[in-house]
């Protein structure tokens, strides 16, 4: 069994979003970094499935930290497609496909359902198409059998069960499992696991970022609601009533 897990280094926000002066990126000077919870579950699942586990990311040199974190909980080696720029989903998928083709074939390729920051919902699906592999998304359970994988997807109060032949591409959601906390021996051993760095040049962007904008009204004071009718109006505007 050989599994590839694709992850993305993202800053830990949670407060007011502050942009860099050129409006091209988040100001991350004092922020910590992580991978999204979906991807943490994907790595954990791959390690539980067993066999060789490779983690791949497209990102800056610092993303080695996230790859080492994945190796600390059991991934065997890492591939870093190094770039200092942010790539759109289509070119990200193309770069991943190229990296996969340079490797021995994988039985399973795992992604988070969507990235925490860009939330494009598409890299895994594009990779599957390019490689001619079946793809199932939004998974909360994976069972690998002989040449097949059985997986389950939440559909509001029920689970849809899919089966796909291997090799396959799967995208997963948080809640798939409970990722383990890295042990210190794991972390120390991860430091010397193999990491391949591939310099990557960004192609022309077809979803070309112009700038980022912080939406109005962020960080302002709570709006006071006077009565139940106002509350219900808010509930309706949020689509939850």
């Amino acid at each position, binding site marked *: 069994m050989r599994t590839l897990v694709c992850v993305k280094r993202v800053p830990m*926000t*949670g407060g007011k*979003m502050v942009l860099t002066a050129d409006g091209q990126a988040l100001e991350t000077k004092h922020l910590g970094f992580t991978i999204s919870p979906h991807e943490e579950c994907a790595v954990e699942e791959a390690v539980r499935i067993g066999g060789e586990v490779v983690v791949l990311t497209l990102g800056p040199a610092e993303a080695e930290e996230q790859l080492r974190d994945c190796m600390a909980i059991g991934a065997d080696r890492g591939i870093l497609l190094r770039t200092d720029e942010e790539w*759109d989903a*289509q070119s990200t*998928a193309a770069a991943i496909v190229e990296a996969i083709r340079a490797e021995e074939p994988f039985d399973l390729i795992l992604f988070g359902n969507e990235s925490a*920051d*860009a*939330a*494009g*919902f*598409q890299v895994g*699906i*594009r990779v*599957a*198409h*390019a490689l001619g592999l*079946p*793809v*199932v*998304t*939004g998974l909360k359970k994976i069972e690998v059998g002989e040449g097949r994988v*059985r997986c389950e997807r939440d*559909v509001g*109060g*029920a*689970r*849809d*069960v*899919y*089966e*796909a032949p291997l090799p*396959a591409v799967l995208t997963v959601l*948080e*809640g798939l499992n409970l990722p383990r906390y890295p042990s210190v021996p794991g972390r120390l051993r991860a430091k010397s696991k193999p990491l391949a760095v591939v310099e990557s040049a960004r192609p022309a*962007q077809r*979803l*070309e*970022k*112009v*700038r*980022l*904008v*912080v*939406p109005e009204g962020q960080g302002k004071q*709570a*709006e*006071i*609601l006077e*009565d*139940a*009718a106002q*509350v*219900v109006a*808010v*509930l309706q505007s*949020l*689509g*939850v*009533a």
Partner: protein
Amino acid sequence: MILCFVEGDELSAQAVGFARKLGEVRAVTFAGAYQPAAWAQALAAQDAEAIVAPGSDRGNELLAHVGALLDQPFAANVIALDGDTVTRVRWGGSLLEEARLHGAPKLLSVAPHTQPAAEVGEVETLDAPGAGSPKVLERVEESSGGVSLRDAKVVVSGGRGVGSAEGFAIIEELAGLLGGAVGCSRVVTSAGWRPHADQVGQTGTKISADLYVACGISGATQHIAGAKGAKKILAINTDPEAPIFASADYAVIGDLHEVVPAISAELKRVRG
């Protein structure tokens, strides 16, 4: 012509509303079991300037497939399109991105609850011959019944202000009406009014709801750490100085024992 994928839900009506702004809309849907790759193939085969879908799990998934099939860019969770320039939601709504979409047809999913819903009108059912993609073998009903705290779209939570285990009846009623889950603060589990599984906080469950309703919760830092994943927070508290208001988007200053039943009653009234 703007092709718009719809299902019979609120988000589809919003997608149609968005699509109408772009041009004449042809609303389409599919019959039978969900087969994303096959459905996407049928969508990709239509002639359209743009293909629009609701920003739901299915809408995003279908357009990702279409994008892959046609080798076109796909912009997810869009709130506006002006010429080639799309504005889309990132970071769960806390950041917007303006980007040029160099593609034809334009593939756009519509960010939920950012557009007014429109009358969907006539819907055409497209044929989707199976394309050998993975399909649903079976559907398993969840045994637990209720929605889990972590996945719930709405969480209605009670704190010390609720006063007793029995006091949670009004919280449960409101959560039920909103199709959400019941949560609570650490004080409540310490007092034994609710099980630890219901606790929202750093040491309980970290939620990711669209709306968090905090009733009679003062807002300890460890509690906020579990609630901050919610897109919006509505706090109900008698104490206008309660720390929870510093993290809330909406505030009702009043006694939850009056406010919560009033909201439930108003919801029932509005729904008729």
